């Protein structure tokens, strides 16, 4: 439901009545074919929201080229006709589909739902009103979002970086961080937006790729690159791309002359006032909750934090203050894409927990018509050539391709479509297949990697086997990469169509096959993440086995006292342990670890071994790895020899116990990044800055007379944690920055500990006398993570943390189907992020476990009994151990001998067997020797 807003939520969890107001689109989505004629004719231009006002759009427009749904809409405020009846109306006249409806009206929908998930996102801080650094006055001061659009191939300049003032190329760009973040005076947003440091680095690197020789400088307070692989990315940006980083306070951006250049003045770390000149200044704008979301929060009746984000508990990070209403993404605090995706899944898990009794009540299986048997028919190929708007047709002479396709053997029908992937074209293709009795289809359009699944559905809808389609990639591999040579591109498009037709001619009907799923989960690791995942799966109704290596549940959280928001960890942990042990769907195996794994998605069987060597085999359909992390034991800063030097975990215990040394001590020094962010361990442990700040606050609160120092490299109190940093400064905690090349020195000097650190301002070493030194030590991966990884065929990264399938879009999935990851096993993170990730892993696992069968792709190795002589060469090369050598069943009149069988559930269709087999005894369905040979022949036919 687009153009829609929630206006009212009545009822209770499990049974809400929601009122949704749908604004008029003035374009009938059923009729609109997104041809774009209306936009072409529309005389009214306004700033494009999508391009962050760097470009224009018309009053009738489509949000962006790949929009879903790809349907036009009229902006009533800008439309001449809607503002003045009788005027204009050009779009209505040119629309062949008759989709324009100026009389469209607002609609009100009443919907009955069991739960509501709020994921309305954020808006970028708008620096116009505050007049930050001359934004809105000097045209070459732009926001990071605008730069994003300039750098985008779909942006206003098609990826060419030019100056807005004079369209001249840009040679020098400055990025100013924390615009609309960490600044209560100018914008009222005291929190850190968490994502700007990283996106600024990314934009600087990408901009340098676009413009060779471009100089980029990032002016910052603290670089907060605390996410997985972020520090590595920053190092690469520094070392390989040559992005310059300057820690400073900028105090002015002024025009230099009338040419559009900008003069930037700042105070550097040594306290000196400097000036530099730039072509362009980019403001790294923060994230904030938009007004309409505040209204939505009010409508939903949920509580907000002081920073205007949804209030949640660290132990229930997607639950709002109103039962049955959940949040995910930036509404509950600024966060990056991976964390937002994690929370999306986590909210799904929380909803599923609530609504488990009503699962499958309202869903229906898609049904398809009976499949036609085409094995005895002569090929009748239909070719559909896509314009992709102007993406293809702008370069390739699609009409010539259409005419050429008609001359190919067995091609009986050819047609061109503006967008082959649009809903109406899908229906049209279905119709043509029936009408023309087509039994093989070629779609000349974009890449099968994204669109083949769609066209397979189309064939199914027409009663044709879904594998009888082949795509000719005349966009990504042709029109987009040969833009300047339309003639050659047209010739290549013809070749690609010919190759696809040749391949599909030898295509066979293939059946995807179903494998039953063991509807049970296995969770490895009994810490907070593991227990949360197990509990959620159990509450969704699935049986779960929870395996914990030690004799106690709780994991690393047993060492924690408070979350950053001040919630008491031991009591919450005790509650969680009670719930897990009391849930009869959860079987707990303490003192046990996984030692052997067989099977595959839906059908794993893991063997666990306990202390005494007793083994147990557990069958499960999905598995969650939540094995946690390890604490780094420092060797630096004389940790071994000086008793007053302790780790932060040790300090917490001493402080809690009101131990005499701590109680009496007057001078405390915290040293950050011990074992983090240095050669060999180039990652941030994410939690230590906040942890030290919290400890410092506690010390100061207990006795304001104490001197508390925090020696840091970058303070990474990200998100709403920034409030703690501010509080600590207010209480008089002294923060001293050090760099990697000037690490502090810690020595015993009689009864005191001397800490020596380089003072940037005074240009000389500074000596602090301390009673106690607290080392903020790193979180390390489990030493044996890689061994467990090998059992399940899931990888660990360079550091030894488990590697997810995709950093952004599949943050809790492994590349091995059916396996998921959560908690410190994935990367250092605070409790609430571990819990969100655990819920997410549970939701992802539940998408599998809720089904009784899993349907697998039919592109699998297949044995040709006539040719296979059991030489077993393929058995060794198969990377998935899917091939087994067996005795050939003795046929009447034939000898026995050996042959192979393929376990299709384990086979991934890679075809190493096919490439190895000297006898053509095994082939991959959908990519047979015959099909590929035909393609080669067709490629070289002209």
């Amino acid at each position, binding site marked *: *439901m*687009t*153009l829609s807003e929630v206006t009212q939520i009545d009822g209770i969890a*499990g*049974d809400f009545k929601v009122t*949704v107001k749908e604004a008029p*689109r003035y374009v009938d989505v059923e009729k609109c074919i997104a041809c774009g004629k209306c936009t072409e004719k529309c005389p009214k231009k306004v700033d494009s929201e*999508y391009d*962050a006002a760097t470009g224009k759009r018309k009053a009738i427009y*489509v*949000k*962006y080229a*790949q*929009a*879903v749904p*790809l*349907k036009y*809409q009229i902006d009533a405020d800008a439309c001449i006709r809607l503002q003045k009846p009788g005027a204009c109306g050009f779009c209505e006249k040119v629309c062949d589909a008759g989709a324009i409806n100026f009389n469209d009206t607002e609609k009100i929908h009443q919907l009955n*739902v*069991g*739960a509501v*998930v709020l*994921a*309305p*996102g954020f808006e970028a801080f708008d620096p116009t009103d505050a007049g930050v650094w001359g934004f809105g006055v000097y045209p070459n001061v732009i926001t990071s979002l605008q730069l*994003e*659009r300039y750098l*985008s191939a779909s*942006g206003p300049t098609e990826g060419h970086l030019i100056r807005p003032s004079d369209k001249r190329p840009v040679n020098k760009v400055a990025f100013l961080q924390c615009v609309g973040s960490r600044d209560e005076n100018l914008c009222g947003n005291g929190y850190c937006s968490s994502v700007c440091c*990283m996106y600024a680095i*990314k934009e600087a690197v*990408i901009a340098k790729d676009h413009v060779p020789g471009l100089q980029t400088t990032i002016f910052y307070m603290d670089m907060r690159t605390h996410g997985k692989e972020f520090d*590595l*990315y920053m190092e690469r940006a520094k070392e390989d791309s040559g992005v310059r980083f300057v820690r400073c306070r900028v105090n002015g951006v002024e025009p230099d002359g009338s040419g559009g250049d900008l003069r930037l003045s700042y105070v550097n770390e040594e306290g000196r006032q400097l000036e530099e000149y730039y072509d362009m200044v980019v403001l790294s704008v923060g994230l904030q909750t938009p007004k*309409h979301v505040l209204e*939505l929060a009010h409508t939903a009746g949920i509580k907000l934090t002081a920073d205007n984000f949804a209030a949640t508990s660290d132990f229930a990070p997607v639950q709002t203050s109103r039962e049955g209403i959940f949040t*995910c*993404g*930036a509404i509950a605090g600024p966060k990056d894409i991976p964390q*937002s*995706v994690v*929370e*999306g*899944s986590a909210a*799904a*898990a929380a*909803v*599923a927990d*609530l*609504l488990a009794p*009503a*699962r*499958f009540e*309202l869903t229906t299986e898609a049904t398809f018509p009976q499949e036609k048997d085409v094995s005895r028919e002569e090929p009748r190929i239909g070719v559909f050539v896509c314009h992709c708007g102007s993406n293809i047709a702008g370069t390739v002479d699609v009409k010539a391709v259409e005419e050429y396709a008609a001359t190919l053997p067995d091609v009986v029908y050819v047609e061109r479509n503006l967008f082959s992937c649009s809903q109406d074209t899908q229906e049209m293709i279905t119709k043509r297949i029936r009408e023309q009795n087509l039994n093989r289809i070629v779609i000349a359009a974009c890449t099968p990697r994204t669109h083949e699944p769609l066209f397979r559905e189309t064939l199914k809808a027409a009663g044709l086997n879904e594998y009888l389609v082949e795509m000719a990639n005349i966009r990504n591999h042709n029109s987009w990469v040969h833009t300047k040579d339309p003639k050659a591109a047209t010739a290549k498009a013809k070749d690609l169509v010919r190759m696809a037709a040749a391949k599909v001619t030898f295509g066979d009907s293939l059946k995807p096959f179903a494998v039953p799923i063991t509807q049970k989960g296995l969770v490895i690791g009994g810490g907070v993440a593991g227990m949360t995942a197990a509990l959620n799966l159990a509450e*969704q109704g699935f049986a779960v086995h929870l395996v914990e290596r030690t004799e106690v549940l709780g994991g690393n959280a047993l060492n924690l006292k408070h979350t950053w928001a001040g919630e008491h960890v031991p009591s919450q942990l005790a509650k969680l342990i009670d719930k897990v042990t009391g849930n009869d769907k959860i079987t707990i195996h303490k003192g046990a670890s996984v030692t052997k794994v067989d099977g595959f998605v839906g059908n794993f069987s893991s063997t666990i071994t306990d202390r005494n060597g007793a083994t147990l085999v557990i069958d499960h359909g999905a598995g969650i790895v939540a094995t946690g992390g390890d604490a780094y034991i420092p060797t630096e800063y004389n940790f071994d020899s000086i008793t007053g030097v302790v780790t932060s975990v040790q300090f917490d215990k001493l402080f809690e116990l009101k131990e005499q040394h701590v109680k009496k001590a007057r001078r405390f020094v915290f040293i950050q990044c011990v074992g983090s962010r240095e050669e060999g361990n180039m990652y941030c442990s994410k939690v230590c800055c906040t942890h030290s700040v919290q400890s410092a606050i506690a010390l100061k609160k207990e006795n304001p007379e104490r001197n508390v120092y925090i020696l840091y490299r970058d303070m990474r109190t990200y998100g709403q944690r920034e409030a703690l940093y501010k509080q600590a400064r207010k209480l008089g905690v002294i923060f001293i920055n050090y760099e990697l090349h000037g690490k502090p020195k810690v020595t015993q000097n009689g009864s005191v500990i001397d800490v020596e650190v380089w003072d940037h301002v005074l240009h000389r070493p500074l000596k602090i006398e301390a009673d106690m030194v607290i080392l903020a030590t790193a979180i390390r991966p489990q030493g044996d993570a890689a061994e467990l990884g090998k059992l399940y065929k899931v990888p660990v990264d360079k550091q030894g943390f488990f590697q997810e399938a995709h*950093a*952004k879009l599949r943050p809790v999935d492994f590349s091995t189907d059916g396996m998921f990851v959560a908690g410190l096993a994935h990367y250092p993170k605070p409790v609430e992020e571990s819990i969100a990730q655990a819920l997410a892993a549970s*939701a992802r696992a539940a*998408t599998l476990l*809720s089904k009784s069968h899993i349907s697998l792709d039919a592109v699998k190795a297949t044995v040709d009994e006539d040719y296979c002589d059991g030489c077993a060469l393929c058995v060794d090369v198969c990377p998935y151990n899917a091939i087994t050598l067996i005795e050939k069943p003795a046929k009447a009149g034939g000898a026995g001998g050996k042959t192979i069988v393929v376990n299709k559930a384990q086979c991934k269709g890679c075809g190493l067997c096919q490439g190895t087999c000297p006898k053509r005894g095994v082939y991959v369905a959908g990519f047979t020797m015959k099909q590929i040979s035909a393609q080669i022949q067709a490629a070289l036919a002209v």
Partner: protein
Amino acid sequence: MLDTKKVGSVMIVGGGVTGMQAALDLADSGYYVYLVEKSGAIGGAMAQLDKTFPTNDCSM
């Protein structure tokens, strides 16, 4: 709570990357989903981004 009626459908407000992920996971595990989006198309803020770190993949 035990005997109150539970409806097997969910409304998700917001069609950005997080809302879409929630919608997909819920639909895939047997719930009917209404995805409500304020603007004319789903995709949210991520659709505006050019490339994403750490791999510099295209956002689309």
